[in-house]
């Protein structure tokens, strides 16, 4: 163990501040771009850049795998059983005829202020999960289960209010629900909206 442990908070912070205190300056183009943006009166949008971290120490790296808890799977199975009838009707409707990638949600059962909402995705996929504000945007993605009709479904208990969500297809592809209202964040990423119990 090093003598770093002996540093007081202030001494430790001062040591880091020496490293972090290096100046950062942007070029004179900054004002040119600023004036152009102001004069164009465009909505403010941030660019979507990949977060390549060249130089990230190896010890920081974390495995980038999809984790699904067995308990979540059991809960999901139980939820699906609760809404089987309505779900089957909707899946049958969506699965008939031409099937472009499509998805929708249906409120199935209300328990106090929580509503069981069924998410349905129809399209070619090896795996599908749903992410949204209700599962911290994929901290624990909710997997959809393939049905015999070629649709993917999952039921999620949601509190009353407005929720945003999207599907993740094959682990990487972000697909907003084509049948739901769309919201767009400052990165211009499209998500879908479901309103529950209002």
């Amino acid at each position, binding site marked *: *163990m*090093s003598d*770093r*442990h002996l*540093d007081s*908070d202030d001494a430790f*912070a001062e*040591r*880091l*501040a020496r*490293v*972090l*205190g*290096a*100046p*950062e*300056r*942007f070029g004179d183009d*900054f*004002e040119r*771009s*600023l*004036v152009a*943006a*102001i*004069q164009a009166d465009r909505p*403010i949008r*941030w*660019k*979507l*850049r*990949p*977060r*390549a*971290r*060249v*130089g*990230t*120490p*190896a*010890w*920081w790296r*974390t495995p*980038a*795998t*999809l984790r699904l808890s067995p308990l979540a799977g059991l809960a999901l199975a139980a939820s699906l059983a609760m809404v089987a009838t309505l779900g089957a009707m909707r899946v049958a409707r969506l699965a008939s005829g031409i099937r472009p990638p499509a998805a929708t949600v249906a409120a199935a059962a209300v328990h106090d202020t929580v509503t069981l909402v069924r998410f349905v995705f129809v399209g070619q996929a090896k795996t599908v*999960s749903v*992410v949204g504000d209700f599962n*911290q*945007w*994929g*901290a624990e*993605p909710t997997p959809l289960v393939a049905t015999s009709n070629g649709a993917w479904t999952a039921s999620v208990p949601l509190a009353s209010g407005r929720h945003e969500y999207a599907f*993740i297809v094959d*682990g*990487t592809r*972000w697909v907003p629900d084509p049948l739901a209202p769309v919201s767009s*964040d*400052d*990165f211009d990423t499209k998500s879908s909206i479901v309103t529950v119990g209002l």
Partner: protein
Amino acid sequence: MHVTDRTDADLVMSAARGDVNAFAELSRRYRDGYSRFAVRMVGDRDDAEDVLQSAFIRAYRALDRCRDPARFGAWLYQIVANECRTFVVRRARRDRRLVHDELRLHETPAASAADGSDTLEDVQYALDQLDVDQREAFLMKHVEQLSYEEMAEITGDGISALKMRVKRACARLRELLEEVHDV
């Protein structure tokens, strides 16, 4: 009078009437001072430049709400800090959707300094692991060297909450950086 000789208050009043060049001069006065804070908060130079630009544009559009033009710098700092926080939170949301981030699998490992001292990459990456409140408080206190009173004015949070955040940030940073030096 040359634009560089004008006071902040005078420039703010001109800019509020639509004089973009007056606002460009205000930007030149404060841009460098806030660049480091934005880069350290956001953890990426290009993103930080975008965030600073968007903060300055928001400030221009809200100039009629700058109650004390003589203290334009402090008012602008609030907008910059808020923009950095919003960016960090929304980027985290966006990043979480990339459940299989191939870029991470192709990172180039960088060795830490041979003498065990902290490199900017190590410290910045440790900083990125803190929650946004702690990161902001640590940077304001120890890198930008603001007083707790100034921090409270900028963030709108109480002094004791800010002190707690700084203390927790130090503890977490110490923990994270000890890992790298013990590896």
